[in-house]
């Protein structure tokens, strides 16, 4: 191939363009063994990853912001957002001032928010890796999904535990409808209970349906207007830390 102006080194001893900027020493001996130039993966103690999912408008971002506000002082934490409009949630969180903007990564989901958290978690794993490299010793990474339907759950390859958020305005039949989000999430949050009376939602129906659908799995009802710090969910998160997996 003819000479290329941006690439005058074909032997690869300074191929800074290939993404990690290290320089190889010149060595023309094809049998020479070189030490691995890359740092070993950090030992044990990785961050706990919690997924927050649920339908559009149920309050996932508000809950994420509340957790950042409450837990940010005591934990080394970071956030990955998957809003379908790419930077919408990240901008909200940055403007809310609850977390250093460099601790928030936004990923693009290719118009398929459930795919990005369940079937092909690559973009989210990349974002988590990026944050863990940037902030060694992270205790907690919160991964907020884009708003999706009742069947959307996080892959266990991406998160250790997951929260599914529904709200009273979505209708008090939502818990009864079930779906993997409602029935299998490690925690179900019924949000915006302060407006239940305005939208005609029967809280007794919602909570009893939720418990019936979920068996022993916990349900928390909350209003971020009445309790902006999401104290019950924060306590649940604290109970997960630190993770003990290898």
């Amino acid at each position, binding site marked *: *191939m003819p000479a290329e102006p941006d690439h005058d080194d074909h032997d690869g001893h300074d*191929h800074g363009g*290939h993404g990690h900027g290290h320089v190889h020493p010149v060595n023309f001996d094809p049998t020479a063994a070189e030490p691995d130039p890359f740092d070993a993966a950090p030992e044990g103690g990785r961050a706990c990853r919690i997924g927050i999912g649920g339908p559009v408008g149920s309050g996932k971002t508000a809950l994420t912001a509340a957790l950042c506000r409450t837990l940010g002082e005591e934990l080394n934490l970071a956030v990955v957002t998957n809003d379908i409009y790419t930077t919408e949630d990240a901008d909200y969180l940055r403007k809310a001032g609850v977390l250093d903007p460099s601790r928030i990564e936004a990923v693009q989901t290719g118009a398929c928010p459930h795919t990005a958290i369940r079937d092909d978690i690559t973009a989210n794993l990349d974002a988590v890796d990026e944050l863990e490299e940037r902030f060694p010793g992270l205790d907690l990474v919160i991964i907020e999904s884009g708003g999706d339907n009742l069947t959307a759950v996080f892959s266990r390859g991406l998160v250790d535990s997951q929260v599914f958020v529904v709200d009273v305005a979505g209708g008090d039949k939502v818990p009864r409808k079930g779906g993997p989000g409602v029935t299998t999430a490690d925690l179900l949050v019924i949000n915006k209970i302060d407006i239940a009376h305005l939208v005609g939602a029967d809280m007794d129906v919602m909570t009893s349906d939720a418990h019936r659908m979920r068996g022993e799995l916990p349900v928390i009802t909350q209003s971020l207007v009445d309790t902006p710090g999401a104290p019950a969910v924060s306590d649940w998160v604290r109970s997960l830390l630190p993770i003990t997996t290898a």
Partner: protein
Amino acid sequence: MSMTDSTEPVPVRSGAVSLILADSRFPGGGHVHSGGLEEAVERGLIHGTADLRPFLAGRLRATGELTAVFAAAAAHAAARGVTRRHWAVLDSEFDARTPSAAQREASRAQGRGTARAASAGWPSPVLRELLAETPRPHHPVILGVITGMSGGRPVDAASTAAYLAVSGPASAAVRLLGLDPLAVNGIVANLSRALDDVAGRAAAVAGDDPRDLPAPGAPALDLLAEAQLRHHKEEVRLFAS
């Protein structure tokens, strides 16, 4: 040109590997890339299946041809056995043929995702050597390495890469424009012959020195990739590329 596909002894093929790599369900991060299609749609260049057809044909002849060449070369190298340094050379030669930084990043992001999946699915010394040399390899390079180390031929790797160069944007078009998926599948199916031709040409040079490999390109796709990245930072984009 050294060995070509036709002069090689027929290796034991692991056909499922090519199917897995080309499957849109493969968890390598491909679904968040549109290959410039989202930007083309935003600019009003593509409205329907009639516009999609030439876009995909053009992308096959540019990106598809280049990625097929490097996938075939990597498969050939993995099968014949090369020094670790070879992977850095191949990787940087792909850099040199990809003028858009946004496209280089999109390729490395998918290469990294594929590497993660491959490390879990097909752990092997060749793969470890590649990733030790270049932890975020270009997408076609790792596609070729996985194919080659699994007993697949260069032409198989080339086919996979060329197919992914059109199947990704085709799927993105269905999602972004709500096109009839049957019609879009028909467009991709009609590219079969062209796909075979691209793969055949790539396999024919698979054993060449990386510096001598062809360098097809499409300036319009380079510009769309750069514009996509800029708009993503300024406003709303659903795809990473």
